[in-house]
């Protein structure tokens, strides 16, 4: 196994593209090292991307934020403005593992491992985050929802690396939230995860909504029926009930060591309602602050 | 004479006998007497057992005296975690 630590993303991409054997990107490494240790993967090349400046910075852009793919969750969560704008996304990332894991783990690593239960992904999906991908054929931009395909499988081609994720500007009366269900209070993998982002008009009618759903299917889902149930309503109980039902209906979970089909399906709806209530509170607070924080 | 009560597996192995009388002044004599009356118990006794004499539990501590009229139980040897 070779270890490379290139200074540019182009060099990193070239290394990955030219490797005949198995290559892996090392960002936070909190998944990769566990896989290495257990013998699950035996790569021939590991490319450490933490020395690439564009991948290790958070930059304001068009009122939103571009977050480098190697930025750790801890660094992200110390960025006060980012946390104020996208608290749900940040909380999702903040739930990955322990404080120790937070110091290394990245949102993009979480995304590119393509685990259905990845805590940071439903929030990014709800926020309609866009990933910038660099590969042998140049740059492209792809909505986060389109990257995972199945556990361990993504739409990235050989030699492609996610360089950054862009979170657009949050609207004046907009709010997001992420809730997950775990049996303990920390350290577990989500049994269900729901990310919600809503926008309201001045009269409190929901004008836009996105609901991302984790751990209930082969990949993270965007639940359009749940969003439809919210849009046009004032997020009253009837709308929330309808949204919960749509969320549960979208679940295609399995029975495993972390939960049952029955449990995941029901709890997805329960958490979606709770998440919308938090997002609503945040949207109203944001509006009352004039669209700031 | 000491009245001995067998519990747990011992009772069944001894053919359903739950109590028996043995002339014994200490645990060693008690165990020898038991073996004589119930030879089936021999392998179990060899594996190690516990003897309760009036609410104090001993291992097969041969020379522990058994006062007359004391209450004696043969129980599984205790272990712990």
């Amino acid at each position, binding site marked *: 196994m070779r270890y490379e630590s290139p200074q540019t993303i182009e060099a990193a991409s070239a290394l990955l593209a030219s490797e005949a054997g198995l290559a892996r990107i090392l960002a936070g490494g909190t998944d990769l090292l566990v896989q290495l240790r257990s013998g699950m993967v035996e790569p021939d090349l590991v490319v450490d991307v933490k020395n690439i400046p564009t991948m290790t910075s958070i930059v304001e852009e068009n009122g939103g934020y571009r977050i480098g793919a190697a930025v750790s969750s801890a660094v992200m969560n110390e960025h006060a403005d980012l946390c104020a704008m996208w608290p749900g996304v940040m909380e999702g990332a903040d739930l990955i593992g322990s404080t120790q894991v937070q110091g290394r783990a990245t949102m993009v690593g979480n995304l590119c491992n393509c685990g259905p239960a990845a805590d940071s992904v439903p929030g990014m999906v709800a926020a309609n985050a866009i990933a910038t991908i660099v590969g042998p054929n140049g740059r492209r931009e792809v909505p986060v929802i389109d990257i995972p395909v199945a556990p361990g499988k993504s739409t990235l081609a050989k030699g492609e690396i996610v360089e950054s994720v862009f979170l657009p500007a949050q609207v004046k009366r907009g709010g997001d939230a992420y809730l997950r269900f775990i049996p303990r209070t920390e350290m577990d*993998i989500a049994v269900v995860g729901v990310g919600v982002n809503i926008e309201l008009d001045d009269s409190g009618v929901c004008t836009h909504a996105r609901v991302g759903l984790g751990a209930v299917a082969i990949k993270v889902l965007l639940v359009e029926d749940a969003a439809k149930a919210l849009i046009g309503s004032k997020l009253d109980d009837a709308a929330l009930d309808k949204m919960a039902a749509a969320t549960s209906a979208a679940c295609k979970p399995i029975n495993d*060591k972390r939960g*049952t089909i029955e449990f995941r399906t029901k709890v997805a709806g329960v958490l979606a309602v709770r998440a919308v209530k938090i997002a609503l509170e945040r949207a109203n607070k944001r509006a009352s602050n004039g669209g700031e924080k | 004479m000491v009245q001995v009560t067998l519990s747990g597996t011992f009772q069944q192995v001894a053919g359903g006998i739950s109590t028996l009388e043995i002339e014994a002044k*200490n645990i060693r004599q008690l165990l020898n007497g038991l073996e004589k009356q119930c030879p089936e118990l021999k392998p179990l006794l060899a594996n190690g057992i516990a003897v309760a004499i009036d*609410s104090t539990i001993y291992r097969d501590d041969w020379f522990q005296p058994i006062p007359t009229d004391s209450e004696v139980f043969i*129980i*599984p040897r205790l*272990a*712990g975690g």
Partner: protein
Amino acid sequence: MARNPDADSAPAPKAVKTSTIEFDADKAKTFKVVGSRPPRPDGMDKVTGRARFGADMVMPGQLVGLILRSPHPHAVIVSIDTTAAEALSGVKSVITRDDFAENADHHDVLCNIMAREKALYEGHAIAAVAATSKAVARKALKLIKVDYQILPHVTDVDLAMAPDAPLLHADMITSGVTPAPTKPSNIAGRSEFGHGDVEAGFALADVIIERDFKTAATHQGYIEPHACVANVGADGMSELWCCTQGHFHVRQVCASLLGIDVSRLRVTASEIGGGFGGKTTVFIEPVALALSRKAGRPVKIAMSRDEVFKASGPTASSSMNVKIGVTKDGHITAGEGEFRYQGGAFAGAPADFGAMSAFACYALDNVKTVAYDVVTNRPKGAAYRAPGAPMSVYAVESVIAELAGEIGMDPIELRLKNAAREGTKSSYGPKFGSCGLVETLEAARDHPHYSAPLGPNQGRGVASGFWFNFGGETCSTLNINADGTVAIAVGTPDIGGSRAAMCIMAAEELGIPYERVRTIVADTSSLGYNDTTEGSRVTFSSGMAVIKASRKAVTEMCNRAAMIWDIPAEAVTWEDGHAKPSGANAGEFEPMSLAEIAATASKTGGPIAGHHEYNADGAGVSFGTHIVDTEVDPETGRVDILRYTVVQDAGKAIHPDYVEGQFQGGAVQGIGWALNEEYIYGEDGRLQNAGFLDYRMPVASDLPMIDTVIVEVPNPGHPYGVRGVGETGIVPPLAAIANGVSAAAGVRLTELPMSPPRVLKAIDDAKVAAQ
């Protein structure tokens, strides 16, 4: 040694030695050091990272040992080909079953540390290599070819008892059944306890509740994986460094498995990173010794966490039925239970201890318990804190709580009405001596926690529990150093602060400050045989050995003073760390301190020491009562522990901090067992959650502070009144939490763990049933 069968006609020898010193109530009134909370002697090394645990030892030229493990839960091992592995550069030895001779004394242990004809569980050791690096050793494991013939497997206790179940051992005939079965089965043994007539008892009851319960297998979850370094010299002289609760036991078993004299193997117990019963046996130690013997170099083996889960010893899972009858005014008329425990691939599930302790909290006229010890294709179980008791007591205490509700009586009141006390005939046979159940129940009832208000979706649970405690073979030595300090050697590894307790007891006896005493855990060549640190025995039995050794040293110091003063030894007494003339008739002399006597020891007869070797009998039982407040999220089944109080009888708390620590640690292990911990097996017989990620032990944010109340009802069999405290704390929590959750959820939960899917299903099923 065989007993002489002729001896029974001989007169009884004089009582050679009574193994206990009785409780001294007068001394207890004047304790100076006992009951204080000084810093522990090993603390500094542990907060700075200097303490050396199992994996921290390095021997010169040391190799890395790794073990190849079966991927199959049940398979015949047709052949093992190690030629390619042996040929790999850097590989210094490879061993398989062929490297161990049959061993009648430790047959099951032998079969467990290295599979023989069959692999009996996923993770069962098949072969091992020692190599110059971990990378080489890993490569070598991959080169070992094993031809398996896969057999059907069984991991569930009830399924394993079925007549058509896959059979693990062709020669397993159930013991304890008359007449003996003619066919083999997976039931290793049946045992029965109790007295009276349960049917007659139930006939007197106004309310009878009978329920089925299940608990999952759990792991002790010590943070330090098993690790050892073995070094076998060309002359056969061997040393072994390992983390264990019982290095003398390790020496005995390893010497036997390797066919060497005990005197040739010196075992040193490292600092031990948790045991809870799981480090009372051997797993990797004989393998490391065999690899070292073959390689001619030291070999270190350290288990991975995955190996700890798959191939060390978790506790039993259980399936149980309990039936209890009670009169309207709260008199329990009869109790009956059947307890089926699977303990993995070999006999030894602690079903009998479960059956014995199930009803131990109650004074019953009619009680009957039956235990089944069952084998399955899971790793061989090991002891886990009060082995067998938490499960059976969970079942009984759940029914007790329900009965209290049925007859409208406060659950502590119901327990007090029926509580076992001194003189009660125990459910397992003998009468109880002095014991403190009633005191713990009264303290719980009077605790502010018990009457604090509860909010919506919250429920309070109470349960009591019991553990026997025991003593065992013990010895220790105590040396008075020339500078007046004291060095103690014990043979019981310190898993919870026992070295501090030893220092306290010696300081108390000698009348010197705690800081002048130091205790070490001696290796197997430095001290006589000691039973393992288990059964909550160390503070009781090693402590009593230290007290006895101190008293012997005191006697000698009085002798020395008497010689110096030229008066008879009987005319000298020991008081506050000084030898003094016992009265006016003895003469007028300035008292001599321990340090003064020690300073002249070389001129008054040489070194001064005390030692004591004995069978420590007279361990007192310990009862406890726990109160817990839980909150259940009715929409998700999530359970939060809001408040927790442990009340337990310690006899006498030598170092109260570590007594509280035992209570708190036991309670939290119980919380894990009750709520989320479990061995989860797939259809393929493989463990699905062999890691801390999905085994789900409690983390700091899951818990409130754990309040403790130390009740002290002295054990008459110890000079200071000490009872073992380590194990009882894990017995009540399973039931206490089940009672709390059932109250909060409005439905009785009867299966552990009460994980959210299970709780939510129970709530939803109850709603459907109610409609």
